[in-house]
């Protein structure tokens, strides 16, 4: 009985967490790259705050999703890293490489296409 209760709690807590993030998950990389394109270079915390600010707290990028995504983009050669000493500690700044800049254009176009398609699906204009 205890296990069933635990299972329910587990599933429910995951479900709640997923509600916000599932749809955004696929476009997280594009969001990061777009921000870096605009801002030049940013560090992790700054990205989370910026996204929160732009979306007025609607979209909350968690650390557990952000850093793996950043590291993956870095490994793919799309991002470059600069480490700098700031108030007693080291800060890791990310910026787009040349390859990353061209890739950003592609991904944004792809995302726009996706949004357009979603809109026509969700809100179709019947032609009859």
């Amino acid at each position, binding site marked *: 009985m205890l*296990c069933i209760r*635990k*299972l329910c709690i*587990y599933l429910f807590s995951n479900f709640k967490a997923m509600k916000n993030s599932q749809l955004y998950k696929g476009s997280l990389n594009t969001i990061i790259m777009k921000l870096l394109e605009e801002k030049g270079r940013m*560090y*992790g*915390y700054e990205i989370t705050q910026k996204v929160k600010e732009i979306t007025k707290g609607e979209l909350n990028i*968690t*650390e*557990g999703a952000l*850093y*793996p995504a950043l590291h993956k983009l870095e490994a793919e050669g799309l991002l470059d890293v600069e*480490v700098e000493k*700031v*108030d*007693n*500690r*080291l*800060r*890791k700044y990310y910026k787009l490489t040349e390859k990353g800049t061209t890739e950003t254009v592609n991904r944004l176009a792809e995302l726009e296409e996706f949004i357009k398609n979603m809109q026509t699906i969700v809100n179709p204009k019947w032609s009859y």
Partner: protein
Amino acid sequence: MKLTAENIQFIDNYLKNSEVIYYDIRMEMLDHVATAVEQKMQSENLDFYDAFKSYMVVNKREILKGNKLWPGFSKDIISNFLKFLFQPIMILIGVLRGVYHKRGHYEMVEKTGLYWHFVDLVWVFVFTFFYLV
């Protein structure tokens, strides 16, 4: 409000004790936590330890998410394992083994081995559903 070198060291030790063993990962996490704590100290007018504690209560799980040394079983792993088991080649091998079994060619050692691995397999599921969940 800026954190002092001791505060930074405190957070670093905390992360080290939470098994963030890789220096580069810890460095980045440290900066993240420190910036967040600074922000919290300012906005809620707390001292370092209170701000750190209340930040960690909410965010610890999320921060250490990518740091698990052993990732445990995820849905992906289980479904990949099942896909692997039900490949045509695996089914073929299974069927051949079944045929072999019917002819009664098994030695005692093999039977013991089969039983042993059967128990192993059962434990894979028992462990997943009763310990990890």
